[in-house]
């Protein structure tokens, strides 16, 4: 009985030590492989008003992702996230129809980001835009 107890105690000690050793090995590996925190990225982007013609779109990096600035036929610039709300592909601007098309699963968005057709569940998020002194500032 005493031997059984000792055996069980040593088994528990060995299991505990093995778990501790495994954790000590796994933690540095986890930290090594974790993506580095790079901060929020660029949160304000400015363009010259003349850079964007009517009916054209301009893609750029914004807050660590891809965004798009489009000047609709009404002349007002609109900034949107260019990441499709379905599965994360980057939408493409179709000048002829003045709308966005996601090439992955044919999701369609209007120039203001609202869903026109296809599987996207939500509109493209909008980003604030200000126009002053010949400059378009996004963010």
């Amino acid at each position, binding site marked *: 009985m005493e031997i059984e107890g000792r055996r069980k105690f040593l088994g528990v000690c060995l299991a505990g030590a093995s778990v501790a050793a495994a954790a000590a090995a796994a933690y*540095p*590996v986890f930290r*090594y*492989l*974790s993506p*580095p925190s790079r901060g929020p990225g660029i949160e304000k982007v400015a363009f010259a008003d003349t850079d964007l013609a009517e009916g054209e779109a301009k893609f750029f990096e914004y807050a660590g992702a891809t965004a798009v600035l489009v000047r609709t036929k009404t002349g007002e610039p609109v900034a949107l996230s260019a990441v499709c709300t379905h599965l994360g592909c980057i939408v493409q601007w179709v000048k002829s129809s003045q709308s966005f098309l996601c090439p992955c699963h044919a999701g369609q968005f209007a120039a203001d980001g609202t869903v026109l057709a296809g599987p996207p569940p939500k509109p493209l998020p909008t980003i604030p835009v200000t126009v002053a002194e010949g400059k378009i500032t996004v963010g």
Partner: protein
Amino acid sequence: MALFTKVYDWIDLRIGAREIVKKELTGYLLPRNINEWYSLGSVLLVIFTLQIVTGLLLLVYYVPDAEKAFKSVSYIMNELPYGWLIRLCHAVGSNMMVAVLFMHMLSTLFMGSYKSPRELNWLTGFTLFAIVQGISLTGYLLPWSQLSFWATTVATNSMSAIPVVGQFLVEFLRGGKLVGPSTLGRFFALHVGLLPVLIAALIGLHLFVLKRTGISTPPFGGTEPTRPWPGDSYRHQSHPGGIPFFPNYALTDLTSISIYFAVFFAVVFFGPNLPFTPDSFVPADPFKTPAHIKPEWYFLANYQILKIFPSELLGLMVQAAAMTFVALLPFIDRSPERHPLRRPLFLTLAIGGILLWGALTIWGHYS
């Protein structure tokens, strides 16, 4: 525990796990006088596994491009969390693998375990030793430091002494006249692709041969009757009445592995600069040869031999002859006697050889 037993029963019903465990672990009997030196093979398996794991982790961030390699290694060492630990484990591990391999081979030599019918064990082990040196040499270039660059230049250049094909071999190995980006590409492919696969395959073959022939009985401290192999038909050397591999010898393996880890981590944490020289921290400059460039410690004897002999070809031939002699030892030394003290010629040659190798290494270090 009940859940564990249930899962074990479930697997056992399907693949006969208990039968395998009995045959390969608890019923796998080893000589009663087996000693700690026999566990060095298990230590080497652990080291090789660790090299694969740390090597894979380094591959996540390492860039095999002459313009970016040094920067990527600096990034791993200085900026990534625990990158220094992964890199040091890999660099120290490669040195330790060669050191433990030396010990494993020496114990095999002194206990006469290389002798008939174990010629194949020795040959596969010796080939593994040569390939491990090759993987160390190719890995040495990858950080693209001054040390890597110039040590590789010297090491590859020594092949030019081979008559007729020497210069062609050097250029073929380097991918050009000089060590450069194409050498890095070649060495990288060898280091992470071909050589690890070769080593894994040879380890498999080494273990297969070991299992088929059976573990040798140590030449001292035992009473097990020895029945010399007549050589007329295949015979597996079994050890009836011996000790089971599990749990008895597995504990000895575990003890040796723990001692190895104690030494390994002592170097990693308290002597992290041991595998490096100041030239390891300077990016490669093909226009500036640093003073006193030296190879790794296990190549110092070879390096010194090349320096001693007036002709490089003669130096290479002496080394090739010595290596061939050691590789073919089971076919040269055919006496069945395995006790080192009853083999005076072997003992003199072995100790003389080790002392000579040690002296050449020290000489090479200080020359």
